[in-house]
């Protein structure tokens, strides 16, 4: 679901949807909730790694969405707008749980000798992501690897690489400096690479 997939023509009909919902009855509101609740729970759960907290965030997000439908201007798709609200709610929970404090990621980072030369073994990547993803085992390995990252790094990667927020938006959301976001993003990617090395090197076969 790339945020860049949005196109302007869709947003006009999204504006109609939003204003219909504002005037609409309970039945149409419930249809709207049912149509969207699954991907919203999924999004929140990916951030929180916890179902019940994810459901709480989604409930709070819906309250906010219904309350602020009149502020939806169609600058993005309705779905993107809603997605940002869910992400925000989930981040508030994370912050309350104090899970965003920095913890060590050092063991997962590349190492260098005294001359600054790379120490870790490297190899040639042969498989494409497409061919690797044909295996359910490998998709599962990716999910497991992401969840192994410390939250402070995992979140930066999820927000910038997956949810496609800009560096400055991530900095704002996580209350970090932009340079800190960049450092964490690179470390998160490097750590993820190390965790996925066996997959990429073809040691976990399809």
């Amino acid at each position, binding site marked *: 679901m790339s945020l860049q997939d949005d196109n302007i023509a869709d947003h006009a009909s999204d504006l109609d949807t939003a204003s219909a919902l504002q005037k609409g009855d309970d039945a149409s509101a419930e249809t709207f909730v049912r149509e969207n609740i699954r991907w919203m729970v999924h999004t929140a759960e990916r951030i929180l790694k916890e179902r019940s907290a994810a459901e709480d965030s989604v409930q709070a997000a819906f309250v906010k969405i219904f309350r602020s439908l009149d502020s939806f201007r169609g600058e993005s798709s309705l779905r993107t707008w809603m997605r940002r609200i869910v992400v925000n709610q989930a981040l508030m929970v994370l912050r309350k749980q104090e899970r965003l404090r920095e913890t060590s990621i050092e063991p997962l980072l590349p190492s260098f000798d005294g001359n*600054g*030369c*790379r120490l*870790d073994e490297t190899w040639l990547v042969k498989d494409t992501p497409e061919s690797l993803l044909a295996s359910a085992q490998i998709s599962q390995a990716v999910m497991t690897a992401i969840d192994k990252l410390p939250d402070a790094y995992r979140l930066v990667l999820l927000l910038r690489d997956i949810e496609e927020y800009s560096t400055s938006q991530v900095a704002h959301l996580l209350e970090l400096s932009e340079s800190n976001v960049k450092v964490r993003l690179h470390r998160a990617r490097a750590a993820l690479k190390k965790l996925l090395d066996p*997959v*990429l090197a073809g040691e976990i076969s399809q």
Partner: protein
Amino acid sequence: MTRSNSLRRRLHGRMFSLPGMITCNEFEDFILAYLDDELPRSKRRVFDWHIRLCKECREYLAAYIASLELTKKALATDEAASLPDVPDDLVTAVMEARKAS
């Protein structure tokens, strides 16, 4: 770590400390800006030069990019394929919260 590896590293270490060159460690620090196309031209030149000379960094960067692509694709596929069932009691709770607010 084999003997030939450590010899090559020693030679690399010398070479990469020459003017106009960067070490693997510095290369590592430039990766993010390189991929975001935010490296100034002079740094981009030394970065590209290092890729050509250093097999380790060349392979490392390829694996770094592949791992990122794999992750993005895996998460997009996961979102399309494994959405949770509609949680009915949550729908009810949302509708009640809507009325209350």
